[in-house]
């Protein structure tokens, strides 16, 4: 159990530390790297509580796709060396108004927590049977493709739409684009491709005519 506790504290401290570094580090690229570190340590925490599927998905989706996308955006926008004058330096007008709004939201949340009342026996009333003999991935898959097939398919339709929508909003048919035509390439023969010319002395040869 000691090893478990050590690993738990290691990953949680790492997660909190890197989360803090995401918002405080000067360079945006460093922020993104700390974000990736954060995702990885949270993924490890997931694996430690036995939710290995969630941990892996976190790694694949957030580290593999989202964070890399962030990195691309940061590098392309060339904001790597941007100074965070917002945070240091001259006085900002955003901070007081932001603080007021956050305090208000905090108070409202306290009101909700004050009147907190769970539905009675929420844990025991749920009719979920946890089968410990199969893995998480197996049990998620077995309901996703049977009971929740409609949700699964509908998510697929949403992805299809987002693809079509992205194409319609960004695709432009450009003029004068040189495209590769395999048929044209293969059907070239020696007569059209190779030309023999006598080169006169001191005159050279004109190629493009």
């Amino acid at each position: 159990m000691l090893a478990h506790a050590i690993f738990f504290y290691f990953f949680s401290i790492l997660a909190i530390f890197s989360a803090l570094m995401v918002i405080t580090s000067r360079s945006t690229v460093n922020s993104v790297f700390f974000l990736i570190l954060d995702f990885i340590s949270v993924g490890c925490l997931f694996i430690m509580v036995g939710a290995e599927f969630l941990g892996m998905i976190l790694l694949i989706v957030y580290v593999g796709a989202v964070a890399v996308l962030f990195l691309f955006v940061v590098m392309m926008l060339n904001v790597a060396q941007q100074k965070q004058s917002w945070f240091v330096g001259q006085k900002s007008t955003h901070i007081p108004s932001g603080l007021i709004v956050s305090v208000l939201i905090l108070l409202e949340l306290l009101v909700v927590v004050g009147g907190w009342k769970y539905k009675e026996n929420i844990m025991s009333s749920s009719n979920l049977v946890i089968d410990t003999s199969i893995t998480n991935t197996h049990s998620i898959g077995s309901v996703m493709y049977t009971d929740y097939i409609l949700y699964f398919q509908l998510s697929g339709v949403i992805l299809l739409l987002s693809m079509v929508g992205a194409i319609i909003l960004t695709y432009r048919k450009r003029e004068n684009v040189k495209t590769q035509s395999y048929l044209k390439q293969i059907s070239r023969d020696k007569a059209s491709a190779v030309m023999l010319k006598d080169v006169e002395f001191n005159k050279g040869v004109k190629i493009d005519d």
Partner: protein
Amino acid sequence: MENINYIIPEITLFLGICLALMVGVFFRNSFSVVIKLSILILLGVIYLILNDWGGEQKIFLDSFKNDKFSDYFKILILISSIFIFFSSDQFVKDKMLNKFEYPIIIMFSILGMFFMLSANDLILFYLGLELQSLALYVLASIDRDNTISSEAGIKYFVLSALSSGLLLYGCSLLYGFTGSTNFDEIGVSLITQNTGAIFAMVFILVGLAFKVSAVPFHMWTPDVYQGAPTSITNFFAVVPKAVGLAVIIRFMDLPFKNIIEEWQTIIIFISIASMILGSVAAIGQKNIKRLLAYSSISHMGYALAGVATGTVSGYTSTIIYITIYIIMNMGTFACLYLMKTDGKYSEKIEDLSGLSKDRPMFAFSFLILFFSLAGIPPLGGFFAKFFVFMSVIESEMYALAIIGLLTTVISAFYYLKVIKIIYFDDSKVKFDDVRNLSIKATIFLSCLFLSLYFISPSIIGSLLNELFI
């Protein structure tokens, strides 16, 4: 396995979308083919729904519910979409929007609305909502070389994403406090006073009010209406509004049925605010699309007044209201397709001046449609308001009824101002003579319905009687 029959319209629509995508990709300049194919698909889906009319079935672990209420709205949005396809055909070609994806994305949003209407579960509802809104973001900015259209798309996207986030937060709170995502089960467990669930209800209501552009959440409406191409504005003004109201009724009737005291005040406030702002802010507008945007805000206020009663007669009157609202707007937007000078579409109200001299029939249809929007007696729009206020008075909410009637008078001012410009001002701009049968047929059918509705005002009501049992 025979359960699959209850979801066959949705499956057909999706397969039709895939077919239309394939046709669009493999044929060159396939817009006219794809739009005809889409109309055929929508007609086929209407046939399938009518074929299975009636009865109430719940499938997919009670998450998908097929009943008369959802069938009625599905047919309503299908018919209005077919009319939009027909009447906007010329406009779309003139504006060079004739890419084959255009009808396909509209069909995607219709598919999303189908799931919103049939949802009996928060997850299915949210998936349908996302499918519908994602299609609408693309549609709003489909005229991508036009800055105003792109701006409209971005504005709609950012605000709508925010409201979807609030709605999702509400859904998660609701799940936390009731232990279920199923509407029926939520309705059963929400009997007692539950502060957390009331928070959830408020968040969900904010998201839904955004979708129907009711007042505190209406900011996007004028800009998006003005920025989007007119054919898309036509779609925005008609179809998502009807679905949004239907979903509000669904939520109030099923999961929130037993906490009526809590939501009633909110709906009354939203309704009154929409009626007042919609009538006052429209007065200074010079662009007819912005005018119609404010007019639609105030119409949503009247429709929500019916919901505020929380009774079956109130819900029925709201459905009658939204049906007549759709018919009025189909006609009005078809008129906008005729406002064309030298091949360019005009949106200024002052361009309409003196229309009665050179185009008397066009001017007369404007007269019927705007009188009906204002709610002047023998026309259909009057009966829509009449039924709503009758049910409000039956529930003894006199203040709501009085404010509603007063705002009707205010809003009559700007409708009549347009009529005055058409009939009594000097002619400035001469419109082209557009010879397009489908636009004229849409205007004619809509005016015919509105002016003959008084013969049998209970016709929609009797159709709706069996919706709530």
